[in-house]
């Protein structure tokens, strides 16, 4: 069986969400990174938000963001209720693990991508 979370901390400090995994690994996700990886159909279709302000105007959607709560979905996923009102993304544990931003996992991903 693939690793599953044992503990999920919605407010792990510094605008991050942390997951302790059954294999001992720990993942720390910045909120905006995780929100950007929302797997729901609507987000998949969304146009990318430009990184830079256009003509000096503030970009909508760059308000502070945090998860208001989260529920387990069966025994395979997490549903996060974001403060921007969005909650339709069901983050499968395998998806969350694949998104782990730690240097080790990132390096492994880069190796996998390079060999593709």
């Amino acid at each position: 069986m693939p690793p599953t979370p044992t503990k999920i901390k919605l407010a792990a400090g510094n605008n991050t969400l942390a997951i302790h995994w059954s294999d001992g690994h720990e993942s720390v996700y910045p909120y905006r990174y995780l929100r950007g990886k929302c797997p729901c159909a609507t987000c998949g279709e969304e146009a990318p938000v430009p990184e830079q302000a256009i003509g000096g105007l503030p970009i909508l959607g760059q308000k502070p963001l945090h998860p208001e709560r989260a529920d387990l979905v069966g025994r395979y996923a997490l549903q996060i209720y974001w403060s921007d009102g969005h909650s339709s993304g069901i983050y499968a544990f395998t998806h969350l693990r694949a998104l782990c931003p730690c240097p080790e996992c990132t390096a492994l991903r880069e190796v996998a991508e390079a060999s593709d």
Partner: protein
Amino acid sequence: MSSQVSPQDVVNALRVVKDPNVGRDIVTLGYVKELEVGDSRVSFALQLTAPAGPARDQLVAQARAAVSALGVANVQVQVVEQAPARTAGHSLIPQVRHTIAIASGKGGVGKSTVAANLAVALNRAGAKVGLMDTDVYGPSVPVLMGGTGVPSVVEGRIEPPEEYGIKIMSMAFFLPKDEAVIWRGPMLHKTIQQFLGDVRWGELDYLLMDMPPGTGDIQLSLSQSIPLTGAVIVSTPQDLALSVASKAIAMFQKLNVPILGVVENMSYHVCRQCGHREEIFGHGGAREAAKKLNYAFLGEIPLDMSIREQSDSGKPVALDDSTIYGKAFQEVAEALVSQIVVADSKTGDEISIE
């Protein structure tokens, strides 16, 4: 002495220990938890539902002796009294200890018959059992269970009728006999949620869920709404059924639902006239498939007219375990309970969100 015992051996050994209050064995009653089997070391917890008094020490001693008899040097038994159910706080059915989906992929392999008979067999072994018919389009549980009872409303929630001591719920209760359900997904989802949350299941050891064929809305709704203990795959032995069954298995794997084992239904037919054994769909295909995929094989049920007749007349064959058919279901139920204990020991603690 190095012990080569498997978790399965331990579970089988523990079957001889009976709770004197109930007169049934502690494995079927779901007392055995957190089983860990190491090199010449076995540890497990006994989860006792009621304050057991003097019976408690006797149970612990008997359980310890049963495992020691396997040649295990170090046996550790921990007693947990009235531990909360495994399911998380937001669960729709907090008083149900195990939820088991009976699924197949392909239709017509006898899921409902197997589900009804397993429910009866588990109940006869002393467990509190519920049977939920999640096949909204083609509900069959009330007929199989002799459905004379009807649900009532108590305190704004649905009180399920009991047949042979088993609480049952089905869409058939809410429809005129020849009416059809013509619904899209969201309605099905709502029904499943209601069958879980708005039905007074009460305290149950096992809630069996008879699934419709396929890998669609209902399967997904159920797997998302509650953390299922596991799934039992029913298949007939021929290649076609097995290849569809493997799709159901793939779905449960994706949703992280443990596969508790495979049951081969319509395994063979023995002619009543001459006693010749005819393997109509081939035989042993499900056993081989289970072995190849490394899942437990829970047993085989023969194809026989008496099973069909008794099913149609609402008297599940498992009610009488003096027949080979009743006995076959009893054995599948026992194998299933063993697998539930093993699965429980593998799934870790509840996931905490803070």
